[in-house]
């Protein structure tokens, strides 16, 4: 049999019955459309969560001190005075792939400037902090190692603090008063927005951790140590090495620290949306299956209805194989065309959802490929039995069929 003839035969047969062809496609259109729409919406949601997690920083491993247990009750992670600046220095020196380290002191207090005051987070950090958090400065520069050594009274502030205290002014070079100590503002961070937990990340003032420990809080321990691993793949290795190193250094029976990685946060955060997408994909697959059954049903009816046509074709020389191929091509054409329309419709409805709710939607190429392949597969599977039945017809019986 020649290559193009079967396609011509099938195309003419489909054209003869436009309405039936359209209705047959409808099941697949709806099935593929709902799969694509569901996947687009959940992928968009997952991407949004991932972006939020990524805003925590680049390949971050965080060491928290253990919880503080006292007479009055137990504190949370970071409350026990177990982590020191020496721990941070040891990590930077001895752990492979730990490219940036920042001992961190978290505090919250009233700050003053311009005759205004504002309650904000005041963090002690190292100059590595912007690199670890993947957070650029909008203006000015980060304080330096020299500032850390000299307990300099310098600060880098976030967008919210700027808005609250320095509206319509350039804050660079101005003074921010923390605990009655004037800090010179040397840099302003770019806006990062809210994090995964709904906290305004821009509501912050950052000063050298030494200044924080000696001038403000007068203490010798840090709340946590932020470490940046060189690559995504080295995160686990860095985590394990820190665990080993810290156990050696602290020598306590029970570890008085915890090491968390961004991967873990990522996994927790995306788990919900993954469950959602599996659920949606399952529902959508059911509608695809129903669409496939619809095609098989109509093809079966159509074989019976077109018995005489099959007889005529056989009489003029169509072999069983030619009839099989014709019906198979008809089924596959219907399902693939339905799939294509479904993809377009699914993407369009995802766009409508995006426009009306503000959720971001993303249609992954992978799923477009899956939709194409599975609709072709559905066509072959659901078309085969009717096509085979048609090809087995006896030409004499078929010609006599009324």
């Amino acid at each position, binding site marked *: 049999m020649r290559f193009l003839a079967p396609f011509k035969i099938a195309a003419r047969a489909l054209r003869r019955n436009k309405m039936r062809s359209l209705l047959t496609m409808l099941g697949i259109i709806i099935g593929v459309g709902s799969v694509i729409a569901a996947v687009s919406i959940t992928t968009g949601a997952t991407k949004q969560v991932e972006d939020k997690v990524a805003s925590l920083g680049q390949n971050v491993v965080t060491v928290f001190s253990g919880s503080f247990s006292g007479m009055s009750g137990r504190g949370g992670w970071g409350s026990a005075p177990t982590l020191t600046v020496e721990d941070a220095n040891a990590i930077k020196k001895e752990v492979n792939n730990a490219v940036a380290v920042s001992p961190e002191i978290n505090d919250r207090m009233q700050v003053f400037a311009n005759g205004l005051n504002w309650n904000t987070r005041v963090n002690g950090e190292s100059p590595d902090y912007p690199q670890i958090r993947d957070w650029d400065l909008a203006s000015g520069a980060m304080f330096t190692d020299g500032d850390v050594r000299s307990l300099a009274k310098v600060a880098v502030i976030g967008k919210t603090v700027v808005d609250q205290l320095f509206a319509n002014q350039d804050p660079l070079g101005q003074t921010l008063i923390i605990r009655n100590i004037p800090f010179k503002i040397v840099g302003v961070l770019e806006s990062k927005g809210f994090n995964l937990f709904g906290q305004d990340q821009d509501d912050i003032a950052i000063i050298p951790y030494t200044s924080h420990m000696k001038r403000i809080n007068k203490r010798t321990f840090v709340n946590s140590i932020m470490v940046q691993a060189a690559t995504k793949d080295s995160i686990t290795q860095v985590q394990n090495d820190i665990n080993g190193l810290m156990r050696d250094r602290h020598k306590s029976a029970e570890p008085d620290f915890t090491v968390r990685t961004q991967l873990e946060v990522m996994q927790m955060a995306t788990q919900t949306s993954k469950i959602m997408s599996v659920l949606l994909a399952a529902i959508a697959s059911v509608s695809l299956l129903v669409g496939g059954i619809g095609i098989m049903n109509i093809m079966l009816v159509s074989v019976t209805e077109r018995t005489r046509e099959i007889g005529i074709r056989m009489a003029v*020389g169509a072999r069983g194989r030619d009839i099989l191929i014709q019906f198979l091509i008809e089924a596959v054409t219907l399902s693939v065309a339905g799939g294509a329309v479904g993809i377009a419709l699914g993407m369009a409805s995802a766009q409508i959802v995006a426009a009306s709710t503000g959720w971001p939607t993303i249609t992954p190429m992978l799923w477009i490929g899956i939709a194409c392949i599975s609709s072709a597969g559905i066509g072959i599977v659901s078309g085969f039995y009717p096509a085979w039945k048609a090809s087995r017809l006896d030409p004499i019986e078929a010609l006599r069929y009324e």
Partner: protein
Amino acid sequence: MQNRPVIQLADIQKIYRTGEVDVHAVRGVTLDIFPGEFVAIMGSSGSGKSTLMNAIGCLDRPTSGLYRLDGIDVSALNRDELAKIRNDKIGFVFQGFNLLSRTTALENVEMPMLYNHRRVSAQEQHERSLKSLELVGLATRADHKPNQLSGGQQQRVAIARALVNQPALLLADEPTGNLDSQTSIEIMGVFQKLNDAGMSIVMVTHELDVARYTKRMIILKDGKIRTDEKVADRLNAENELKHLKQAQEAVKLA
């Protein structure tokens, strides 16, 4: 007349084994039909003419006996090989026209070429179909669909379809069964013209009037050939049409 017969049947038998009773539809038919012949196969229902027709048309295999079509032994071919023979050698014309609905006359005529083993270009398909339609006088209706054509015109399209692969044999099964008498004569006129041009035609019919337009009449009874003779008082479709028109005019005048 050439030496080699188009159809050579030797002791053809067809037995239908349905349940306990065997039905002996054709009981030993031996028959030669030569190129350029125009044969009517007649017989009452149950005489075995349909069964014989199916065997000649390569739609069915005889239970026993030898059948050579255009020199090829087709009595032992399988389904696919028979389909190829039908495509190459035989043009079918049916009682019910059997055109594809909602499909233009031209595409109906093109249809057999889509099953050719040799590739036929779209242009050649088009040209050959048009030529075929011209031959039956319907070239101007090429883009009409069956429901826009009269019965006689539909049967002409069916004849054009039968001719498009230049078959060795035209096989007609009650071709005038669904037509009025004047249209029947017109269709027989088409057959006579084709036969004059050298086409071998075998036609199954139960109407003696129609059979009289052929050259040779074979009458079957109980699965055997009863008579096989030349048509003595052969009718000419052109003359008959003239007579009919004269008669109609006479009625109108009167």
